[in-house]
């Protein structure tokens, strides 16, 4: 595991104030007994108390431990230590890990092995497992029937009357879906509760969503006739997660993987991070990370980085979700993202993807030679004169980076708009 860049440390911070506090501590003054090896960085930081805080960081996982009472992870001490380490100002080498750091690493290793043992050694009881599955299926079936009934009620009363309902009405429906173990649908319904007021095209949006939900209920009833890939896509749509343990061993696709771009979002309850990767054979996958509000997301990968790692894909069709099955080692930066297509090609590809999997509404696109047009929320225009509107785009930043020249740009195509995630400028992949 190589030394982190300062940028990577900055991205690991849970919030801006922790980082500011860490910068103040990031000088050798308060630090003693610092050191690092392949996976650990450790040190003692003199705080306001008598005994210095013991800070250890596992840079591979990454995981953080500090004896300070802060409830932020990583805390300012861990960040400051990493900052110093990334600048090469402290914690340089050190043959033997300090006692407290070694102890912690051992504890972690033990806990991991115990957990693993418990998982592998636990006697599998097929009867109990089958019963659990049957229970879940019954619950989901009932939930889907309930949802279908709600949909018919919705259109019988009319969408206009649905709009007059308070948010708690939508929330109640979503809560019932969660109880029926259909969190994927619940999330969409909850979002609709605010979308009907926030969007000007709410009628069409609600009508089409209702249609899509209706299609989900129908597909669910005939799930026994679906192909495995189709069923997997449907499982994602309703929110029936596949356990990571079931994915881990299935395959090991080797890199180098090129990071096409990444997006972070935060809906107030959950932080999400999507990282789009492309393998040597052109396979595009997306790695999803989630974290609760107070936690830190997994360290983001820089757009344009080449990663040495193996990847396993979740079941499904098209550009599938994937997870890293080995430690991730950056190999260097790519000078380009490859050959980009035109806008009409991108839309055709989207049509194809929708035809295969109608539940998904986000598709990765690599556009070649597009120029940024600053009208309204911004547009992208390719050489043939086709244009797509931008969404969530830092327009100023895009203009500043591209200067109005044609560039290759990677983004997510969503409801006919592009969310730009990275662009290639002067042989460098940059993030707007």
């Amino acid at each position, binding site marked *: 595991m190589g030394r982190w860049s300062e940028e990577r440390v900055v991205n690991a911070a849970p919030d801006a104030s922790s980082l500011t506090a860490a910068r103040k501590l990031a000088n050798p003054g308060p630090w003693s007994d610092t050191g690092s090896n392949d996976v650990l960085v450790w040190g003692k930081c003199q705080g306001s108390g008598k005994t210095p805080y013991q800070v250890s960081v596992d840079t591979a996982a990454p995981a953080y431990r500090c004896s300070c009472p802060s409830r932020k992870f990583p805390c300012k001490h861990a960040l400051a230590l990493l900052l110093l380490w990334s600048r090469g100002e402290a914690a340089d080498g050190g043959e033997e890990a300090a006692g407290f750091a070694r102890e912690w690493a051992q504890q972690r290793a033990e806990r991991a092995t115990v957990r693993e043992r418990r998982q592998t050694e636990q006697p599998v009881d097929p009867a109990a497992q089958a019963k659990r599955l049957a229970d879940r299926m019954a619950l989901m079936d009932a939930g889907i029937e309930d949802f279908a009934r709600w949909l018919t009620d919705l*259109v019988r009363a009319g969408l206009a009357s649905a709009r007059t309902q308070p948010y708690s009405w939508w929330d109640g429906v979503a809560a019932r879906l969660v109880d029926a173990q259909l969190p994927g649908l619940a999330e969409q319904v909850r979002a609709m509760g605010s979308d009907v007021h926030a969007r000007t095209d709410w009628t069409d949006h609600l009508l089409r969503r209702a249609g899509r939900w209706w299609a989900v209920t129908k597909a669910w009833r005939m799930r026994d006739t679906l192909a495995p890939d189709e069923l997997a896509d449907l499982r994602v749509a309703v929110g029936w997660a596949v356990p990571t343990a079931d994915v881990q061993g299935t395959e090991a696709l080797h890199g180098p993987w090129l990071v096409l771009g990444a997006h972070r979002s935060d809906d107030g309850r959950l932080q999400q991070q999507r990282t789009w990767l492309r393998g040597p054979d052109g396979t595009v996958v997306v790695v999803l990370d989630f974290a609760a509000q107070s936690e830190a997301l997994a360290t983001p990968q820089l757009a344009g980085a080449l990663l040495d790692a193996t990847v396993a894909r979740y079941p499904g069709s098209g550009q599938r979700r994937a997870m890293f099955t080995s430690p991730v080692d950056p190999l260097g930066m790519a000078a380009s993202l490859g050959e980009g297509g035109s806008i009409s090609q991108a839309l055709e590809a989207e049509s194809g993807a929708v035809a295969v999997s109608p539940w998904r509404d986000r598709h990765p696109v690599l556009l070649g030679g597009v120029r940024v*047009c600053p009208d309204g929320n911004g547009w992208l*225009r390719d050489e043939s004169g086709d244009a797509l509107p931008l969404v969530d785009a830092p327009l100023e930043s895009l203009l500043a980076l591209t200067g109005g020249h044609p560039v290759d740009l990677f983004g997510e195509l969503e409801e006919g708009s592009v969310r730009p995630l990275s662009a290639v400028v002067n042989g460098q992949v940059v993030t707007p």
Partner: protein
Amino acid sequence: MTWLTDLRTAALVGTARHPAPPPPLELGVRPPEGLSTEESLLDQAALADAVIRTTRRSTPLDAANLPEPARSDDAPEASGEAARLLDLLLTQPPVGLELRNQLVADWLQLAGSSGRRVPHRLLPLLLSLAGTKPGVAAHLHPAIGTRGSWLQELRAGDSTSEAATETEWAELKSADATAQLEKLRRTDPAAAREQLDMHWDALGARERAAHLATLSINLQTDDEDVLERALDDKAKSVREVAASLLDRLPSSARASRMAGRLSPLVRVKGVLRKQFEIDLPSEPDAAALRDGIPPDPRTGEPDRLGRLDAIVRGAPLDVWTTTAGRSPATTVTLLKGETRVLETLLATAVLRADLDWVRALLDVRTDLRLLKVLPPAEREETLVRHIRTGAPNPFALAAPLRDMPRPWGSSLADAVLEQISAKNGGQLAALLADILPAALPPEAAGHCRRLLEGSDDDAGRRRVLRDAVQYQSFRQSLTEAFQ
């Protein structure tokens, strides 16, 4: 699209009141038999969703909407430490916001003088900051380079604000018209005067007074005609503005009329000719009233001292030197006992920026209003002397110190630091908090550090000194980063 429209209407109203439309047979759809109307509508909604998503087409966009691409930058990008420091200042300033703005301005100046430019990715943040902070905006060029200027033009193009042309000026609201006139007066005084003159008769009394007052910017002898005419105005407020502006023109006809009134009132008496004798003016005649000398009040005693003041303010200062037959400096010493006249003379000398008189008056009076008129070097010297000789009032001292060009000379810096570190210096420190860090020259950093180390429990003072030290050390890193 009529099918979609029908579908939307049915869905909006609800199938209870509006039946679902027939499915679009032309799409080759064969719906199953025996569907309820709700099911049919939902089926069609799902179909519409799939159709729309699979047939999406891009919007053609005219190339004319695209901005002209930016020309390439000639200057090399500031890299490494310099870029990192600017990033830090813009995204996570380690210092207070006032200091941050000053340091960003310093960064831009250093980059400009060493021929480096701002990295493209930092331009949006920088331009946003400059949008609200004129101190930063003033130093954007040349450091932002071609790309920065291009981006600025693009931003300016979004908010079209055209300068009002002459014909429109008459239609502006009076406050806006005054502001417009002030702006024009700064760049082209004669044009502003002509514009006012042209519309004079159409203006109301309040507007005439407000617009006429704008002539105080770049007042010159050419303005005399307009002002002289305004002395005959119907409105008292306009006449007063005109008189006060003419007070500043010692070569005007009104000034010589005032001189005619003043000369008979003053003479030097005594064997040694060491004292002025000043008579009070008599009742004003019509011409004097026109020139702005106050008339008798309806009740009570006339304010004869007030009349004298008006005459002194209006007359050229030469009257005094001619009468005394001596230089301004000596004349001022002869007037020592006449505090009220001296006060009026002081105000007049400051208004007219008469350097000889200002210097002469500074010898007998340490009035900080006089400082503003002096050239910077002399002003600094006088200010230092002033600080060293007495314990000045911090409120009176703060204003001229803020006016001084920065950075200060080291003698002034030392004098101010001594004032600040004195027993009651906390107040002055607080008044100068925002400008002091940038005002102190680099040589003063050591002095600040020593003062900071000395124990002190005045939090405000410590903060100011700490800011100054922080600023100097950050500036030092900036200078090194650009070497």
